[in-house]
């Protein structure tokens, strides 16, 4: 069997140039190896709105600084030790300890004093993280370590559709539908002044598949989670290269997203044509079973949340037996 040729695509947009809270996506394949790391990070603008002055005199919000700083630290970590799935738990604990120590040091460097404001709405250097560490295995499979904190998400897109690999850390464990409707507060993310955890699941993924990490600016302004799948598939089918796919996605998101957005996608280059074909079939299914009924309700200009929710429930309950995690439930690895 041919060895997979892994390719990445990245998408990064700031609503205001130079002020974006999303870091540039991380997309690394380690030299001469069949493993890598992909991630997105979204600095939390509400909780991290305090403004800091850097040694060079420039000023930025905690949200801006946190996403970029943690991205850099994750990259540093994996440059020293490649993702090793036989050591995954230890490695994850090491990453958390490393990030925590570095955030503590960064707080000192920036001379951040305790806030005079009480309450749990403000955090020091808060950012979300959605990250996948991957290893190419024999038999056309990827072993993946799916890691997240906050409301940035990991997905897998395959012939059966778009599947969630992460569950937002929001109040009340809101699902994707509730998150879109209610915009619930985030209860866990990476930050300096409180404990936090990284959630983890591990999967063995059969190719052809596309792994995706993205921030809420990508999916948070669409009418439903089904529309995000449709957006991903329609643009993928139109594209002939990864770069073209990312450009098409950006063109579609620009007029609708009210936030910064970032996304990184990974696939086997040799699967492009097969995936196009199978996703064409899936697109028809999504269109006929979910989008048309949903948009039909919207066009009635009536608020019919229960019917919309029924469509979402049917969509969310799609069989994902083939994506059973290696560990039955996610593990949470946290700071003290």
């Amino acid at each position, binding site marked *: 069997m041919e060895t997979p040729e892994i390719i990445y695509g990245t998408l990064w947009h700031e*609503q*205001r140039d130079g002020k974006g809270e999303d870091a540039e996506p991380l997309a690394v394949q380690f030299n001469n190896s069949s493993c890598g790391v992909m991630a997105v990070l979204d600095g*939390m*603008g*509400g*909780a991290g*709105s*305090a*403004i800091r002055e850097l040694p060079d005199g420039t000023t930025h*919000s905690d*949200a801006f600084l946190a996403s970029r700083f943690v991205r850099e630290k994750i990259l540093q970590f994996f440059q020293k030790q490649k993702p090793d799935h036989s050591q995954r738990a230890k490695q994850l604990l090491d990453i958390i300890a490393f990030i925590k120590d570095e955030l503590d040091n960064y707080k000192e460097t920036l001379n951040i004093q305790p*806030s*005079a*404001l*009480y*309450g*749990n*709405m*403000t955090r020091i250097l808060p950012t979300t993280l959605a990250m996948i560490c991957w290893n190419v295995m024999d038999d056309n499979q990827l072993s993946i370590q799916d890691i997240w904190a906050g409301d940035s998400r990991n997905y897998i897109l395959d012939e059966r559709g778009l599947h969630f690999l992460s569950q937002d850390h929001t*109040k*009340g464990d809101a699902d994707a539908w509730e998150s879109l409707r*209610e*915009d*619930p*507060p985030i209860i866990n993310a990476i930050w300096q002044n409180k404990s936090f955890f990284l959630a983890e699941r591990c999967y063995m993924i059969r190719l052809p598949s596309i792994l995706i990490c993205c921030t809420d600016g990508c999916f948070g*302004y669409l009418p439903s989670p089904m529309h995000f799948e449709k957006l991903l598939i329609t643009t993928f089918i139109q594209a002939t290269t990864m770069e073209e796919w990312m450009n098409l996605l950006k063109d579609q998101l620009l*007029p*609708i*997203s*009210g936030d910064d957005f970032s996304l990184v996608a990974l696939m086997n280059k040799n699967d492009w044509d097969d995936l196009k074909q199978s996703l064409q079939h899936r697109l028809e299914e999504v269109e006929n079973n979910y989008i048309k009924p949903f948009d039909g309700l919207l066009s009635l200009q009536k608020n019919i949340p229960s019917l919309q929710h029924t469509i979402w429930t049917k969509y969310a309950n799609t069989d994902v037996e083939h994506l059973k995690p290696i560990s039955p439930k996610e593990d949470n690895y946290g700071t003290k």
Partner: protein
Amino acid sequence: MENQQGLKYNVDLVFVVDTTGSMANLINTVKGNILKFYPDLKKVADEKGKSISQFRIKVIDFKNYEYNGRGAIQESKFFTLTNDAQMENEEDQLQSYVNNLSANGGSGSREQGYRENGLEALTIAMRSDWDKGGDKRRHVIVLFTDIAPLTFEEGRKYAGDNYPQDMPANFDELTDMWDSPQGAVMAKSSKRLILFAPDCETWDNISNNWNEVIHWPAKAGEGLSDADYNTILDTLMNSI
């Protein structure tokens, strides 16, 4: 900056103001803060490309039921500040209402530690007829006081017949009204509470244990720096 996405952001602000005599030297500052809070918030929103489609503002002022009877807590209507011809009129009404606030009398007794019915005023604010329109919403309560509040149990005991029947039995019930999945009276994603109130057990309990609260621990906002004021505005608007 125009909101290219065409999203409608609706913001409701309810100001809760202690107008007892002890606030006399602070009331003009508080009135000024109320009248500049919404244009400042609007400016922050505009800078972030989040054009607010509708601002509604209400004012609740409170004293002490024992000394002021059933009229101890007064509330205005919601003044609607939208971008239409009616806005100017509503804005004038709001300014007039705020300018007419005066701090005099009505504090509790020495036995009560000169405390007032701040928790009852907060309860009334939480029960406001919050906006349900727009694509994204913020429902913000901003409370100004210079003193700890009476507990519900004390308030009921001191005020006797003057005390309203529909108040929470105790602080735990109020906490449930804010935070519990069953009892919450405000939408979990929209609600925010800003306290400009001194360090004391009750206000600290709120800021330590309730979600979505920012507390500036000083009398009615005294000594708030520009940086912290901007942090509050940014915190409110960045997460919407």
